């Protein structure tokens, strides 16, 4: 049994990311509690009780989702493998491409960790405020608000993860799921704790950049493999037999489509090359299709990154279009009520910044974390934001879009300020 049979990178990544998100929810909630009721002159028993509620709710949600996910994946395999075993290559192809899309879709959002944190602060604050307004509905919900909220949010996010894992694991061996899930959860929690404790923002970001690069390598290889499997399927249909019979040698591939072929290092048979294939998309028999897919995928990623960077900050690019001004006009600058259950509700941004323990240490003073999120980044984060609250934007974006000069001014000014902020942290 090889490593690749026991470990699947895609599953690991999804769990890692979802766990990271869950740990951010918990850290945000804990931060609210700390600032709201955790002060020295408040009742510490209430604070501890609420903290326990948070942990209880989050863990309950998470464990339910694990059970649900386990059942789903098991059922998926049990039902699916029979249906798909007949023409495995074509399904392998489809699932590789699905997995590639999922990773591509989730990947870049990882690099906007602050945005992710901001989203959750925003949502929790909103939810708490809503609950305040419906205080009379039931004493249960008000009593256990601190458990229900993380429970519901964790559960909701996790179902999304299950769906994603369902898509990704189809191309993986069922044996690979448990280890990948455990490893993903452990790594995600570890990083979440690191962030909560206020680890070095720079090193966290560098870590995330590295892992994102790595993940896109995986996604590119998945896309390429999807095409490869499709072509392999076509070839096996043409040949009308089991082409695995001929091993890596002549006849195992369609010479008309071959770009290179070496009679060794076949990822279908050789464990080491299997890992090389999973991570980097290695094929001993490359086809025009798989090579083109690999290259076009990277070109698409480059274009996407450019578009996203441009939308976040057109100043990165010399060409400026004006069409985006429309969106920023609608941005509501009022901040939603922030903390429920605190006797002295503060809606002042600056207050929050000062007392937020989780963020101040590494210099994220923006509690709503939406500084740059008015862009229409194609991610779940935005989808949820739009649904839960009107998009908020900081003034920075407004000013950035005002004119080219002002953008350059801000850029020029922000550096020293930012640096000083980091050093002061």
């Amino acid at each position: 049994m090889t490593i690749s049979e026991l470990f699947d990178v895609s599953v690991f990544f999804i769990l890692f990311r979802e766990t990271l998100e869950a740990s951010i929810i918990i850290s945000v909630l804990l931060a609210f509690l700390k600032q709201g009721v955790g002060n020295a002159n408040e009742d510490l028993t209430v604070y501890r009780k609420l903290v326990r509620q948070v942990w209880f709710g989050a863990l309950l949600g998470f464990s339910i989702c694990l059970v649900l996910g386990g059942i789903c994946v098991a059922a998926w395999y049990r039902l699916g493998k029979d249906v798909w075993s007949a023409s495995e290559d074509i399904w392998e192809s489809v699932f590789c491409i699905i997995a590639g899309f999922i990773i591509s879709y989730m990947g870049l959002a990882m690099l906007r960790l602050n945005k992710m944190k901001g989203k959750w602060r925003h949502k929790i604050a909103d939810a708490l405020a809503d609950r305040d307004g419906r205080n009379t509905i039931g004493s249960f919900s008000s009593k256990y608000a601190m458990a229900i909220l993380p429970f519901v949010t964790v559960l909701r996010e996790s179902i999304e993860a299950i769906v994603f894992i369902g898509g990704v694991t189809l191309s993986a061996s069922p044996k690979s799921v448990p280890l990948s899930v455990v490893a993903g959860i452990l790594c995600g929690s570890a990083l979440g704790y690191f962030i909560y404790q206020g680890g070095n923002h720079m090193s966290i970001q560098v870590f995330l950049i590295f892992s994102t690069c790595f993940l896109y390598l995986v996604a590119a290889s998945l896309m390429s493999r999807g095409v490869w499997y499709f072509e392999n399927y076509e070839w096996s249909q043409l040949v009308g037999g089991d082409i695995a019979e001929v091993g890596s040698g002549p006849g195992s591939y369609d010479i008309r489509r071959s770009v290179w072929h070496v009679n060794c290092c076949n990822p279908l048979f050789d464990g080491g090359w299997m890992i090389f294939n999973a991570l980097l998309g290695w094929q001993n028999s490359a086809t025009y299709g798989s090579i083109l897919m690999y290259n076009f995928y990277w070109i698409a990623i480059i274009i996407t990154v450019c578009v996203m960077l441009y939308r976040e900050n057109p100043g990165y690019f010399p060409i400026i279009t004006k069409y985006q001004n429309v969106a920023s006009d609608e941005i509501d600058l009022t901040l939603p009520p922030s903390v429920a259950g605190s006797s002295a509700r503060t809606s002042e941004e600056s207050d929050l910044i000062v007392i937020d323990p989780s963020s101040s240490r590494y210099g994220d003073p923006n509690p709503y974390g939406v500084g740059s999120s008015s862009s229409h980044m194609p991610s779940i984060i935005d989808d949820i934001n739009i649904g839960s609250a009107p998009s908020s934007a900081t003034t920075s974006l407004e000013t950035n879009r005002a004119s080219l000069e002002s953008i350059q001014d801000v850029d020029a000014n922000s550096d020293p300020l930012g640096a000083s902020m980091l050093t002061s942290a």
Partner: protein
Amino acid sequence: MRVFSLLATLAASATVVLAATVQYDFSVDWVQANPDGDYDRTFIGINGEWPPPPIKCNIHDRVIVNVTNNLGNEPTAIHFHGLFMNGTNAMDGPAFVTQCPVPAGNNIIYNFTVDQPGMYWYHSHYGGQYPDGLRAPFIVYDPDEPFAGQYDEDTYLSVSDYYHQSIPWLTANKFLTLTNPTGGEPIPDAALFNNSQNIKFKVEPNKTYKIRIVNMGALVSQYIWFEGHDFKIVEVDGIYVEPTDASMIYITVAQRYTILLTTKNSTDTNYPMIASFDTTMLDHVPNSLVWNVTGWLTYDENAAFPEPAMIDQYDFYDDFNLVPVEKEQPYEPDYQVSVSVKMNNLGDGVNYAFFNDISYVAPDVPALYTVMSSGNLSTDATVYGANTHTYVLGYQEVVEIVLNNLDKGTHPFHLHGHTFQVVERSPAAPDANTYLTYDSANPGTVNEYPMRRDTVYVRPNGYFVLRFKTDNPGVWFFHCHIEWHLEQGLALVLVEAPLEIQSRQVIPEDHYAACKAGGYAYEGNAAGNTVNLLDLSGEKLQPKPLPAGFTARGIVAMVFSCISAFAGMGFITWYGLSDLKSTELEVAEALGEPLDDSDESK
């Protein structure tokens, strides 16, 4: 139609036989038939009949076969399998070896004397044509056979595999094609006994039958046995052998066995006789394939015809141990031809067969015609073309053919113009990754009087060693008799004593006429060059090998993939780092209200 000489009809009579002339006029044409009752197809028949008639003659007779090709859409050529054609090499028949294919609408006359007794067969030797039907027994009666008088009836039995589709269609669409990269031979649709199935082989009790058995199939060897009856093997491939008890034979394509079978005393029941495919020679065994064919030794039409019994294993007699009646110790070889059999794909994606990395490609000029038109250069193998894999042999030498089979299949090899001593033959290698190859320093079993025949099998990953005397000047084909493998190029050419051929033999005008009618070159070297015989430019060659590993395009593709991956990761890194920057920006925004104010105030 046939014209029999008076004496030919008295074939089996054990009297003094005078040489006679036997003439057959064959019109080769398409005939509808349905031998297995499953599928009506067109066969190549003779004189409007399928199966074609057997040729029968007495030893020392002159046989004239006047062949007219009335197929309309295919050329043809007829080979008389096993006959030495001593002095008449041009009558041997293989297209592009000793003659041009006879184009549709043309005529050719084969005229030769038969000085060998026993069981032979004739078949088309153009392309892969004979499994489409043009094959039949060729029986030579010999009043002086060593077992004369020991039998009551002289009869024959043919076995064959059988395809519903035509060979050219199968070759083009299922076999020599990119989509058959493993070279899997088309699977036969049925097995036939005497071109039929469920035959009733009428016998009488207490009699001895001489049964000449021939496998006229295209691909598979067959096991043959007669339930409840043992028999004696008395002749193989025209060589009389010491009568040898056996209960089952293993007969490859093109081999012949003559047996003496004595019937039982009673007529209570009939006995199944079975021919069963050697299924290990099939690429795969489809569920629908019935790979046995049954007939019955029919004592009594009204008695039961029982189903054949299952057998545990094929316990056949190993022909290696047969002892010829005419005993000869192993010859001492003067010259060795050593070849290895391989199957591999070439650059067009098609699977070919190779002797020493050469896959036979027919030349433009039949090799015999090159002999006749190349003067003293005929002793230089170059003139026969690089891809015909030609060896020039001296006269009156002993040639040894060492064949190492590096393929995992059983192959029946046939040498035209000779019988050979089977000096050594290994069993199959124990597994697919082991090769048993001939080592002259460490010989295997050699019998005192080696068996001789004209078609012999080699086992998977095994080898054999053959020896023969070059006492028959001529151009002789040595090839695998699996018709598919011949199409894949598993053949080589032996040009034996070319100067002797030039001085003693003549190619008749009607043979040249066939070349002219078909537009085939008939002079000069393999490429048809008559001026400079050593200039082979334009000769037919096998396709180029598959590109090995990373060629230029592979390297370019790999480099581009690496560049785009690194570029992509670069952009991702940029994107990631810009988050740091924007965070700092937000910090500035959040803390620096005056900054905003000042901006707005501008």
